């Protein structure tokens, strides 16, 4: 009797899981990908126009690229403050995360959120809650590649 109950329970559980899987919305992958491609592409296109403008002024490619990053970071910080960037992010997904504007967005969004904890240990610390891990891993990988190069050269 008890065994039968247990078996019934298992069947019920399985039916329930099947139902959940059927009803649960699947991410609209194709739509998301088109949004990510277009928005990410447009952000990079804007950056390319800015970079070409600076190179037109006679700046080296490296310096023009640095200025471009600075301007893109400024625009993203402003757009995040105004609440525009996060609206874009709801649709664009990775298209708004992967470019350096997404890095600036993560910095501003988390710093703004913790303003109530003060300007030094609230904003000052939380500015790095997402940027910190990113920089740690970036610095570490670059350092070890550099170290490898030191050994190869010697």
């Amino acid at each position: 009797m008890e065994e039968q109950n247990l078996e019934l329970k298992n069947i019920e559980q399985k039916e329930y899981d099947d139902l959940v899987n059927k009803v649960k919305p699947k991410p609209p992958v194709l739509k998301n990908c088109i949004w990510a491609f277009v928005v990410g592409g447009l952000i990079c296109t804007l950056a390319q126009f800015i970079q070409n403008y600076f190179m037109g002024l006679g700046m080296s490619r490296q310096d023009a690229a640095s200025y471009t990053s600075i301007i893109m970071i400024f625009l993203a910080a402003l757009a995040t403050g105004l609440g525009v960037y996060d609206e874009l992010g709801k649709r664009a997904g990775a298209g708004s995360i992967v470019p350096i504007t997404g890095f600036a967005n993560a910095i501003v969004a988390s710093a703004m959120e913790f303003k109530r904890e003060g300007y030094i240990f609230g904003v000052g610390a939380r500015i790095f809650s997402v940027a910190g891990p990113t920089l740690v891993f970036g610095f570490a990988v670059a350092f070890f590649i550099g170290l490898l190069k030191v050994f190869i050269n010697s």
Partner: protein
Amino acid sequence: MVPWYSAFIVGGILCLIGQLVMDLTKAQITPGHILVGYITSGAILSGLGLYQPLVEIGGAGATIPLSGFGHLLTQGTLKAVEQKGLLGAFSGGIEAAAAGITAAVIFGYIAAVIFNPKG
């Protein structure tokens, strides 16, 4: 100079890969994971000499995604190692990325002080 449509296509594809990673993996991938993943991948690909060709084709389409920031770190480190040896491994990466990092901290701080979160 790289034409705008090259930047559009290369930048778009790099973002599309990120979207596929987010949508098709079971694990909960946050924007933070994407950022860490891109900077790390970019730095490694750059060390293998595979990222510079992408920059030649895509221009800002390859340098603006965070993988381009990783590329900048690695190239700065390698260049500094050629000039200063071991010291360069410690100093080169951050030197190359200094403008972007400082801009992010300064503009980020100012924006966070001026504006308040919505909702």
